[in-house]
């Protein structure tokens, strides 16, 4: 999971990120300045928002913590990462932000081939704060 999120950010690819976003319900997304966003978005909107972000800002550093933090009394986990980026237009570098991805396990419906479903993880919330 961490590798997939890391690949999405390092490649500035909203399509890769979309694959790990939940399709059930809305995703609370909270990003500080200069992105300045706090809203509940659908998966498609989250994709479009990150498409817009990656078209303006290029990731210069993204390091995901290898260990996930568990949430007591909940099946979810938190993936922590550090993210810094540069404005492609102005060249202004924005120092590290702390990113939190709230992840929940998802069991997909059984496949028609009769294979056992494989446990997958999806992001249900994205939060960021300045370090």
């Amino acid at each position, binding site marked *: 999971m961490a590798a997939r999120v890391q690949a999405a950010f390092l490649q500035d690819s909203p399509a890769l990120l979309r694959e790990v976003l939940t399709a059930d319900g809305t995703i609370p*997304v909270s990003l500080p*300045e200069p992105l300045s*966003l*706090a*809203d509940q*978005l*659908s998966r*498609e*909107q989250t*994709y*479009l*928002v990150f*498409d*817009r972000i990656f*078209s*303006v800002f290029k990731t210069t550093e993204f390091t995901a913590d290898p260990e996930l933090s568990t949430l007591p009394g909940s099946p979810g986990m938190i993936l922590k990462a550090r993210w810094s980026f540069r404005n492609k*237009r*102005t*060249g*202004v570098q924005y120092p590290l932000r702390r990113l939190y991805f709230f992840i929940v396990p998802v069991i997909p419906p059984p496949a028609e081939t009769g294979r056992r479903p494989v446990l997958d993880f999806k992001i249900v919330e994205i939060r960021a704060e300045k370090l």
Partner: protein
Amino acid sequence: MPGRRFRSRRTLLVASLALVVLALLVGVLSLTLPGLLSKDYDAKSLAALRRQAARTRQEFSALIAALEARQALFPPAVMPAEPQDFFPLFSRAGLDPERDGIALCNGDGFLETWYGDVLSPAVQIDREDLERQKKEGGSFLIRSKATVYLVALQPLGNGGRMLAHFTRMAFIPQVRSTHIREFHALRLPAGFDFSIDYWDFREDVEGFGKFFARHQDQFTGEPRQKNEIQTLFFPLRNEKGRIMATATLASPSLTSRLTATREVLRLILLLILIAAASLALAFFWSSPGFLRGRNAVPGLAGAVLLIVVRLLALPLGELEKIQSLGLFQPAVAGFVSWRGLTGSPVDIFLTSLTILGLAACLAVYALRRPKRFRFARRG
């Protein structure tokens, strides 16, 4: 009547062609302007920084002068004896109670009467400091939580009473949101990166004094490379010459300036082309042959132009000035489709309008087509 319609249609075509010529001129300008901007960029950028620093200093001096002018409204000789009689005088002084304040204080700095946004000098300032400030005169800054006030004390003579004049200089909250925003009485200069540190009168600014004495009251940073970001660090002083704030101005790098200029020219170019295509569209769809259903060519040309207009509007959402507008943000509304045709509320609206326009074009042509043409093949 047909003659007038012909003239108005011809006007549409002429206006459309004129806009295309204008678009070409903007295109040529976008090719030549970067060269003009790049010439002596460092020198021009430094000169602009110095001009802006002078403007910021003037603005700061104007705030101090306004506080002095306010003191002149309350000459000690004609001030009333009773505290309650001060309030009508304060409320008639034309202050903005959200940003300014005035207080009558006793000799110890305790409030007796006040109007607007004020602090209690007795609570904020030590007795010793209060006496010194009264004696020295001049304005000074007080930081109280997230707010910075510009303050001037005006002794009234009788029994150590004084008026304390306040103006809010800044509000710098730790947490910012749509409801909690940073405020500065000094306007943030457009086109520059600007940061300012306010120094409470109790803070030691002697080090800054020595530093600026060595650098003619402003320090110019040396950019690492040519045409890079330049910075100017300078103090803001009160009427007595004491440093009250230090400001840093940074000019954009040439790359950033060129990008911004190109984006503005691109925006103008796109808007002109959209206007030109819209006029041409009106020209074709007002053709009598098309409206009577006898000639499909103008309708087809108009339909192509309508699609062109929609495609021309697509890159608008990529421009920085446009992106920040709420109606162009996918967070408000949007869903995935080809080339972002429905990526924002405006995109959804324009795409729907285009589909509606194409449907209307088809309907007009099909329904107004004479019957002999409609059934010609069947017969």
